[in-house]
């Protein structure tokens, strides 16, 4: 079955996108990403050491951009200006690559997005030719605004970044999914495989996660579990679940031909 995820005109076989933070070392990062089957991997952009630590390994040597679609993020940015500047540096770093993850944070405790700044940055980036995948609040109105502005994908949180609290807002996610004409991905909140399956069963086009894999007791095994969960949730969504029958049972076995009748 050809069921690829299309973002900004490019097809991907995997609907699981993964972050590269919080791993023990680059070997574990690469092993977990390979087990996840993810083709799109997020990275952060940070100041390099300026000669204090020569020969320091570089993440892009472990995850070569020829093999993975690198999705630079703006994690840690609290203003539209900082986010735009960061992504212009990322585009230069990645030789003109346009696909980016925009996130403008509003508060260090919750890492909730600052939506006015997010909208402002999205507008500038889209005009500047970026394909913007945008971390956003689970607000259908603002998700639609981002889509109308030309964002390539909207990525509402399911619960707080790094919290592992799971899908706390299925109704809002459904409202966003039902109205969207661009891919909707859950970005943030997934804690274990069933959370990823639930997101996909709701009709999300994909799931982006980092901590759920990196902070599992066995990250490589959890990456494999997440790969299957996203696939199984997607198949269940496409299959179409049976309608719920409240307060009424419906036997699966024949009601006639019972012995002694």
């Amino acid at each position, binding site marked *: 079955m050809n069921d690829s995820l299309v973002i900004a005109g490019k097809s991907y076989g995997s609907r699981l996108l993964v*972050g*590269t*933070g*919080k*791993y023990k070392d680059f070997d574990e*990062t690469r092993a977990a990403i390979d087990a996840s089957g993810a083709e799109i991997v*997020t*990275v*952060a*952009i*940070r*100041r*390099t050491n*300026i*000669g204090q630590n*020569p*020969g320091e390994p*570089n*993440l*892009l*040597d472990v995850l070569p951009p020829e093999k993975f679609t*690198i999705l*630079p*993020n703006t*994690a840690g940015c609290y203003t539209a200006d900082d986010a735009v*500047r960061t992504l*212009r*540096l*990322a585009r*230069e*770093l*990645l*030789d003109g690559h346009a696909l980016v993850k925009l996130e403008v944070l509003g508060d260090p405790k919750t890492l909730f997005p600052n939506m006015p700044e997010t909208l402002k940055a999205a507008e500038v980036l889209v005009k500047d030719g970026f394909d913007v995948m945008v971390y956003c609040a689970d607000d259908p109105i603002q998700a639609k605004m981002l889509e109308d502005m030309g964002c390539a994908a909207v990525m509402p949180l399911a619960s707080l*970044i*790094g919290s592992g609290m799971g899908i706390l807002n299925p109704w809002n996610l459904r409202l966003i999914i039902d109205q969207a004409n661009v891919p909707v991905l859950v970005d943030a909140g997934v804690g274990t495989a069933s959370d990823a399956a639930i997101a996909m069963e709701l009709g999300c086009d994909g799931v*982006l*996660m*980092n*901590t759920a894999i990196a902070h599992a007791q066995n990250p490589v095994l959890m990456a494999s579990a997440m790969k299957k969960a996203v696939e199984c949730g997607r198949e269940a969504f496409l299959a179409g679940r049976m309608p719920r029958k409240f307060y009424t049972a419906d036997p699966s076995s024949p009601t006639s031909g019972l012995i002694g009748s």
Partner: protein
Amino acid sequence: MIQLIINGQPERLEQALTVHALLEARQLAGKRLAVERNGEIVPKGRHAETLLADGDRLEIVVAVGGG
């Protein structure tokens, strides 16, 4: 002698260097990185011709693990 701010740190150079020469001196030449000078990107193709000036503010960034 020129004075620069590189990644937020004040730095002195004996003489004005190009971006490329600075990266070489810091053993960063050829690495996957990006340079911004006074808020503007310096494309890789122009590292060799971009001469740093007194008071320049540089940001030199790489990709690191993140979500």
